[in-house]
Structure formats: C-alpha cells, structure tokens
C-alpha cells in the first residue's frame, strides 16, 4: 500500500479489474489503460519476435530444420491474430481479459513439460535452458498481448534478457542478426514512446510509490561488494559458496543434464591455452606425440595420422567421442629410484629446467587435499639406507567390477572394519608428466578406474597395496580415478586396547643396533613418557619433531657423519623431510611400532585451485613420510614434517559453514582497503542516488531547449516534482498542477517565493489551452519556468514531513479561493 495515499485510500476496491485498480493505484491510468499506437505495438511485437528468434537459433545451435519455417509462420500468425483481436476490443473489455493467469500458465506449463520429459524419458536439458525456454513462452504470450505501454515495456525487458542470454551462449551470426533486430526495434519503440508519452509523463511521475527503504540500501551497499569479492575471490571462498546453483559442469556439483564444462562435467575443455584448464575428466585427448597413447585410435580424418614412434600397450576404443588434437610437448621428469639413501649430496645451485610446457605440474589431483600419493614404500632400514624388501605375497589377482556402468578395478586387499573407516575418499589424478608405471595412490587404495579400460590385466598389483600399469609408463592426461579408505587411528585403538598391532614381518620393526639405537630409544622414551596409548605416543613424537626441529631442504650432514639420522636428531635439529620421516620411523620402531618409510608426492592444499577444483602437484612436491601399522593389514599415514598435513576426516556441515565464514572473514581482512572502498562507494551511491539523478535531470532541463510552452512547463514541473519527492511533496495523481504548486509552497525554503495567480494562469494556459501544442516558449513562460525551477525544498525530518503531508491532506477541489468575490 503506497503510504502517500493514506489520506485518500479507498476502503475497499473490488477485484473485478485488478489491472485497472493497479493502474489507478500507481497513478498510471493514462498510459496503463490506453492502447498504444499501432506503430508502438508493432515495434514491440517485432522486438519480441526477434528476441524469440534469437533464443530459438541459439537453442538449435545451427541445426536448423525445414520445419522451422512453418513453425515461425504459425507463431507470427498467432501473435498477429491475438494482437489484432485485442486491438479491436474496446479498452474496458480488453483490460478485463485475464491475461496474467494465461502468462503464468504459459511459463509454468513450459517448465512442467520440460521437467516432465526429464522425469518420464530420462532425457533432459540443462537447467538454464529449461528456464530460458519457459521465459521464451512467457515472452511469446506477452508479445501477443502487449497492447498497453507497461506490457510492451515488459516485452522489451524479457526480450532483452533472452537476447543477452542467446548472444552469450552462442556466437552464431544469425543470433547476432536477431539481436541487432531486437535492438533496432527496441530503440525505435523507446523513441516513439518518448514522443507519445511525454504529455503523461508528469502523471507517471506523480504516482505514489513505495519509498526505497534506507536499511535495504545500506544492506545492499555492504552485501554487494561482498558478493563481488566472493564471486571473484580467491580459492576457498569461491569454493565454499559454489554449488548453490545447478552446475553446468564446471563447479564440480555434477548434474547429469548440465552442459559440459571444466571440472567434473562430461566433456573436456581442451587446454590449448593453459594446461590447467584440464580437469580430471573422463575423455582423453589424443595427443600427437612421440610417446605412445593409452588409446589406439584409428584416425580416419583426411590427414595422415601421426604415428607414434614407440608403441606401448594400448586398448582399442570406439571412435567417439570426437578427438581433440592438442599440440603439446611434454617434459621428462625424473622419478624415484628403487633405493632411497638418506645420505645425500648438497643441492646444486643449478635448477633443472622442467621443459617448455606451460605447466610445471607432474599431475593434477581432483578431490580432497592434503593427499599423500605413494610411489615407493621402503621397509628395511640399515642406519643409512632404506630398502624396499617386502616379500611379494601371493596377491590375489585384481578383478574388474562394473559400477554404474563403469569398469572399476577392485584392489583385493583386506577391508578395514566399517567402524574404523573415517571416510571413503575418491580422487582423480591426471598425469601430466610422470615417468613411471606406478599409480600414485593414497594409502588404503580400494579401487581404480580408468575410462574404457575394462581388463584387469592392464594393471599389475604391487606389494604394500600399490598398483602399476602393465605398460612402460602412466598414460598422460588420462584421468585415473582412485577410491581409498581413510582409517581413523583412534577408532582402531578403541578395539585394540591402546596398542596398535605389529606386522608379522620383522623388517618393519627392525632398527640398527648400536649407538643409534641407544640414543634413539632414549629419545623416544623421553618424548613419550606421558603417553599412555599408541596414538598418544605417535602424537607425542610427531609433535616433538614438528615443533623442535626445523625443515631445511638444504641441510645436509657432514660427510663424515656415520648416522645422518642421529646427527639430525641429536645435533643439527634441522634437515629435509626425509630426515623427519626416517627419524619418526626409527623412533616409532624403538617403541615397538611397525613402520615403513614412504616416498611419493604430496598434493598440497596451498596449491588447490578453487575455480578448477583441482590441485597441482609439482616436482617440488616430492615428499617422504611414514606409515604406521595399526593392525589387520591397515596402515596409517604419519606426517612428522612441519608444514605438511595429513588428510583428516571430511568436515561436518557445521564445520563447513564455519570454515566458509572464516574464509570470508579472512578474505575481508586481507582485502580490507578494497572492501572499505567498495562499501564506501556503495554507501555514497545509495546516499546520493537522488542527488545524482537530480543533477542529471537539472542538466537536461538546462541544456535541451523545449520546443513548445507546454513542453517547457511540463519539463519544469517534472523537475520540481522530482525534487519535491525528497520531502514527500510530490504531485499526487488526482492533483492538478496549480493545486500542487499552491500546496507545496509550505514546504519551500523560506527564500523561495511562491507563484502569483498570474503565473499560475500562464501555467494553465500553456498546459491546457487548445492551442497549447503550438504555443512557442515566450518570455512569460520562460519566466514562469525559472520561477518554478527555483523551488527548493527545506530538508526536513520524518516527523516534519508527516506533518506537511497531513497539512495538505485535502486536494483543493472545492476551494475556489478568493476569486470572483463580488463587492
């Protein structure tokens, strides 16, 4: 309910003609109720049809069939027929036709049909297309029934939306042509409408309207910059807030009907510009390269296919999906040796160039990080060297099982008890450049899936739960999906009475006797004397190492040191990550744990790319850590190196909300000058919005000369009406200009003089004399315009404003004033 109407509000108004009522309420009778000229309606129809055509063309995506032509003829005939029919009806009849329900029915009907198709037939359209088609139907209905100005405005508004959508979706020339037609028709409509509607402009200005609540402005001023920050912001922020809208594939929230995109979508976007745009996706690009591809593709395109010089094992696949030729050069990277020595040379200053590829990444990981990807597991430690000596147990051959239509290799290991599993993790790897056949995988690997590979003999099980490809090296840029189970050490302890079990293999418990063992054992006992269970012991040792020792990759023990580990633990207290891992492994072994030393790659959360939802793993992420046996074939990752973390259980919903809030807070703190600036600008814009609008109007009033006296007066009245709005003294719908000018005198600044009766008479003559349209702007009119334009209103508080409003309660209908009083 418009508050300005409290004094004239009718008690009730029948609902027989809602639109009429609405039009009266909003004071737009003259434009809302009258049919526009044929030219205006034709232009709005043209604009509506152009927008629909643009949408349709974008929808068809170039696949135009012959059936389109009769379809369009029918649509145009329908629109023209309905429009002509409505024009022939008298005004009051055409307004009472319930058009709004028809439009709503069109919109909802289209929405339901599309949804129904999705449910019934299982074929679906992306969410945005369903919405846009429904909007298209709505626009069709609006186009056909747009006889009045507000409805035609609606057509242009919806049409603009459709055209923008079509243009941003498809860069087809025909869509662009339709968009241009729409623009041309819209501009034409605006021009003609401006000319036709100028006389009623003041009436529209005078409509009472809901004032823009100030608190909403302030809230917007704060929320909008925040939203901008979130939308464009870094890493976790965008990650935390994504997923609210059905995804078109790129955000990782998978919707089977969405269009393809980067990330978890159905299709790969070729990373021709930037290798990071490779998501972990299930179709492989077919790279002309000297190295063998995983897929043996018969390429029957016109050009001779590039033959690999070397052949590796390959699996035959169908011709689809369309292959993408991507020119790339891959760099060779070195891989871990079979032996790992803790005695190393110091780092040379010269860094090895990885190659000329745009990415230095070895691989990309999709899924939760931090992640320890194991490449090599070492069992025996002789005081200096770690050696992998686990016996090749007779591992049962892995089996392929089809899950959701996809072949998964089940790695046959003993499964942990359900209660001890903290989480089942899924990760996807995309190898960029890793010269090994071993699949880097987290501990507790359960299943592996590589698109199209449905034969178990492509994989080779390795000891320590590892898996390798039965070929020379891992296939590049082919996503490898991994499922692993994360063990919760505390839950294991609950069952094992505070002690982890040990392995049958003594190798995992052996440590070299001698000085090393004595010192280390002493340290271990010292550090863990307050710990009462296995978990606490491990935690104590890890805590000590992480807090009291310094990670220094360049720290190398002197050449004459017999035991680098002892030197690290007792003397230097600084060293690279393998010293931390070795120390932890040996310390735990002296306490009776079964441990092993693992090298591999560490997917760091710091490298997590929130937009692409994956983590780069660089050569610098080569890392060493420890695994502890917890019993029943399960190993637990231990991270003694400071700065590295172990993957914890997934956060709860509340935890997620908290983390997101924290991330937002952090982002605000980090970018506080920007946020402050944005808030300040927003606040200033909200605060001064009227002044700025006023300034533009004033400038327009001053610069553009009016052609007739009527136009001059009208424009001046609009100007003052706009000003008066700020003190709630705007012209009311049923108020004549003279009544209004007399009424607002009380709100004027004291320095401004009101108009005298002669000036009021000039205004009336200019506006209402039959020749008003022809009267030129003479000096009188100019003087009156300037007098009105001098109207300035005292800024008043709310209470005073209400008083003013209540004073001018009655329009001066029945007050003939002091005229014609006879003597």
């Amino acid at each position, binding site marked *: 309910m418009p508050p300005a109407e409290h004094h004239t509000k*009718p008690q009730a108004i029948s609902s027989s003609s809602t639109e009429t009522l609405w039009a009266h309420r909003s004071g737009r009778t*003259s434009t809302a109720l009258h049919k526009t000229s044929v030219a205006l309606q034709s232009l709005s129809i043209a604009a509506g049809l152009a927008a629909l055509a643009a949408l349709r063309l974008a929808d068809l995506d170039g696949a135009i069939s012959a059936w389109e032509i009769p379809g369009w003829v029918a649509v145009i005939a329908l629109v023209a027929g309905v429009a002509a029919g409505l024009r022939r009806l008298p005004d009051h009849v055409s307004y009472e036709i319930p058009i709004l329900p028809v439009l709503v029915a069109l919109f909802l009907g289209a929405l339901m049909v599309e949804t129904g198709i999705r449910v019934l037939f299982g074929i679906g359209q992306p969410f945005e297309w369903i919405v846009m088609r429904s909007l298209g139907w709505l626009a069709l209905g609006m186009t056909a029934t747009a006889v009045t100005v507000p409805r035609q405005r609606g057509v242009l508004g919806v049409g603009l939306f459709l055209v923008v959508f079509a243009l941003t979706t498809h860069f087809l020339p025909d869509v662009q042509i339709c968009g241009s037609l729409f623009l041309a028709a819209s501009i034409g409509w605006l021009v003609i409408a401006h000319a036709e509607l100028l006389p009623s402009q003041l009436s529209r200005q005078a409509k009472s309207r809901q004032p823009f609540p100030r608190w909403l402005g302030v809230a917007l001023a704060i929320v909008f910059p925040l939203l901008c920050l979130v939308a464009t912001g870094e890493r976790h922020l965008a990650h935390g807030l994504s997923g609210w809208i059905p995804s078109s594939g790129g955000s990782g929230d998978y919707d089977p009907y969405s269009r393809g995109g980067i990330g978890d979508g159905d299709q790969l976007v070729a990373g021709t510009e930037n290798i990071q745009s490779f998501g972990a996706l299930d179709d492989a690009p077919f790279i002309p390269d000297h190295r063998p591809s995983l897929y043996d593709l018969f390429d029957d395109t016109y050009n001779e296919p590039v033959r690999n010089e070397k052949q590796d094992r390959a699996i035959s696949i169908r011709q689809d999906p369309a292959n993408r030729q991507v020119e790339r050069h891959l760099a060779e990277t070195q891989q871990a040796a079979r032996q790992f020595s803790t005695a190393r040379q110091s780092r040379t200053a010269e860094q090895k160039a990885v190659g000329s590829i745009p990415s230095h990444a070895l691989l990309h990981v999709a899924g939760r990080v931090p992640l320890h990807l194991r490449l090599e597991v070492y069992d025996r430690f002789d005081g200096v060297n770690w050696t992998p000596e686990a016996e090749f147990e007779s591992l049962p051959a892995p089996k392929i099982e089809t899950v959701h239509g996809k072949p998964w290799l089940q790695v046959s290991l003993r499964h942990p008890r359900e209660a001890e599993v903290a989480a089942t993790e899924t990760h996807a790897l995309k190898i960029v450049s890793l010269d090994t056949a071993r699949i880097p995988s987290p501990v507790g690997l359960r299943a592996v899936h590589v698109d199209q590979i449905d034969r178990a003999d492509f994989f080779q099980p390795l000891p320590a739960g590892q898996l390798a490809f039965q070929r020379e090296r891992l296939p590049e840029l082919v996503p490898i999906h991994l499922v692993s189970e994360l063990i919760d050490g505390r839950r294991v302890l609950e069952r094992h009475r505070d002690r982890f079990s040990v392995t049958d293999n003594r190798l995992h418990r052996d440590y070299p006797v001698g000085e090393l063992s004595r010192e280390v054992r002493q340290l271990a006992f010292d550090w863990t004397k307050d710990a009462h269970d296995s978990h606490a012991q491990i935690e104590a040792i890890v805590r000590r190492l992480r807090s009291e020792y310094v990670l220094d990759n360049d720290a190398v023990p002197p050449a004459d040191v017999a035991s680098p580990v002892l030197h690290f633990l007792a003397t230097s207290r600084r060293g690279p990550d393998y010293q931390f891992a070795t120390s932890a492994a040996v310390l735990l072994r002296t306490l009776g744990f079964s441990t092993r030393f693992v090298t591999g790659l560490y997917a760091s959360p710091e490298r997590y790319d929130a937009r692409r939802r994956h983590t780069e793993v660089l050569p610098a992420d080569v890392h060493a850590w420890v695994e502890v046996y917890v019993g029943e074939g399960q190993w637990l990752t231990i991270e003694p190196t400071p700065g590295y973390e172990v993957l914890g259980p997934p956060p709860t919903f509340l935890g997620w909300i908290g983390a997101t809030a924290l991330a937002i807070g952090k982002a605000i703190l980090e970018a506080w000058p920007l946020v402050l600036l944005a808030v300040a600008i927003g606040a200033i814009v909200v605060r001064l919005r009227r002044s700025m609008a006023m300034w533009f109007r004033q400038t327009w009033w001053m610069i553009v000369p009016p052609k007739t006296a009527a136009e001059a007066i009208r424009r001046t009245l609009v100007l003052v009406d706009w000003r008066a709005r700020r003190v709630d003294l705007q012209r009311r719908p049923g108020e004549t200009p003279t009544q209004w000018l007399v009424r607002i005198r009380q709100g004027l600044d004291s320095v401004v003089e009101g108009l005298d009766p002669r000036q009021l008479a000039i205004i009336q003559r200019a506006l209402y004399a039959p020749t008003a349209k022809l009267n030129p702007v003479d000096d009188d009119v100019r003087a009156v315009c300037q007098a009105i334009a001098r109207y300035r209103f005292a800024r008043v508080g709310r209470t005073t404003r209400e008083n003013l409003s209540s004073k001018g309660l009655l329009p001066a209908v029945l007050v003939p004033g002091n005229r014609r009083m006879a003597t």
Partner: protein
Amino acid sequence: MATTQTTFDRAADLRTSIDQLRAWLNRVLRGKAEVIEHVLTCLLGRGHLLLEDRPGLGKTTLAKGLAATCGGRFARVQCTPDLLPSDITGFNIFNQKSHEFEFRRGPVFSDVLLADEINRATPRTQSALLEAMAERQVTLDTVCYRLSDEFFVIATQNPLDQHGTYPLPEAQLDRFAMKLSIGYPDREDELGLLQSSIGESDTADVTAQEPVLSLVELRHLQEQVAAVPISRPLLEYLTDLARFTRKHPHISLGVSPRGLLTWMRMAQGWAFLDGRDFVTPDDIQSVAIPVLSVRLGTDHDDPAPLIREILAEVPVPC
C-alpha cells in the same frame, strides 16, 4: 475590424452583466459566494438546479432572485402530495364559445421555474417534469408544445429524512445538472442579514430588482459557454473519471454519458465564469461535487467524500 471591436465590446458588456448578476445574488444570499458561482455555472451551462437543504435557508429567495435578474418569466410550483401533473404542464379545457379544446398553459411555460419542495410531490407528478426538463417540451394529447429555450428549473427539496417526502427517481435526478446545499450562513453574515432587514417592510421583494440580463443576452452567454474549447487530454481525463465511477465498488450507479456531457458543460461554464477561454482540470474538479452528488448512486448519505476520493485517485493529465 469594426466587427471585432463590436464583438469585444459586447463581450465586455456581457461580463459586466455577469458581474452585476453575481453582485445581486450575493446581496440576496449573503456569504454564499461559492453556491452562487455554482448557480451561475448551472444557468450558463443550461443545466437545471436542485437545491437541497433545510427550510428557511434561502432556497426560494435565491431562485426568485435569479429569475428576477434574468428578466425572464418566473413561475413557481409549490409541490404537495396532492399536486397533479396537469398542475405543472397545463391542461386542455373545453371552450364553450368556440366549442374547442383550448390548451391552458401550466407553470412550465416560463423561463425560470421554481419547483419548491419537489420531493413532496408524488412520483407521478415529479415525472411530469421529466420531459420538460430534458427536452424542453411538453406533450399533451399527442400535441407537442415547445418551452422557452432558456427554460431553467430550480427545484428545492428537503432532506430525505423529513416526513412526507418521496425520493426523486434516478431518472429525474439525472436531469438536474447540479445539486447544491446552501447551508447555514456564518455568524457575521447572519448578523449583517439582521441589520440590513431593519426598516425593510416584509413586502419588500427580491423580485423588485431590475433585470440585468435579457433573455437574448443569456442565450448568447450560453452559446459562448458551450463553445469554450477543452483539450483532448482533459476530455480523456473526464472519461477516465466517469469510467472510474462506474467501476467503484461503493457506487451502484456511475456517471451516465448524459451526466458526463453535463459535467463537461458545467466545467466549461466554470471556466467561462473565471474569464478563461479554455478549460483546466481545476474547472472539472471544482464542479465535480455538485454535478456528481446529484447523479451518483451511493449508499452514503453524503457522497462528497467519495467524490473527493475519486478525484484524488484518477491522475490529472499534464
């Protein structure tokens, strides 16, 4: 050139006459300038007038004064429940000498007819006035008699809650251009009234005033009023107003096209009286209450607030 000058002089003369008329009426009815403006508007717009008020407020005085100043024939009918239609229109009487029926003219064959307390007459009698008011003619026994071109009815009525009254049918009401209430005068005006009547004999009559306007002049004025131009946006405004009354939930009978025509004429008259040669929305609004209150069918006793509401709702063109 000479013709223009003459026309100008004549127009100036007419304006003087109107001012004299206004002055005289203001003297007859003290402190009621606004009512008198409306009465004059009604006269110039060729509309009939209905005065509704309590007894003794000067309704009859006003009517008689108006008739006298216009210089036309004045007739008066005191309506009572036993008044017959022929008492108003006239009747045929058999002439013994000529052995023919002769038409004996009733009071309607005058220039100003005062139908006093019209709602005391029976509906049948009231209806007799219908044709006279609408078409300015009387049909009796298939013979049609023209009335004066300036035929102007001033009817008075007591408020309906008084005893022994018959409400006027809507068809009759629509023939009136305006309904006015005179209302009690102010204290000062009442005092002046008393003072001025000291020494005046009771026989002193308001009709003693010399006519200030001849019938020809009046007709000329009426023609001028009808010719006052009105711009198209204002015609649309009038139409919007009328349509709004028809859709209003509290109005059972909206403005008829005849009522709308009357409204426009009254607005023209108001503009003319204001000395303008064009109509403004202020004119339309100024005559709205008397014009609409006679013809809107509402459930309210006083339709004025409703009419103000309508005027406030419908946007004024600018």
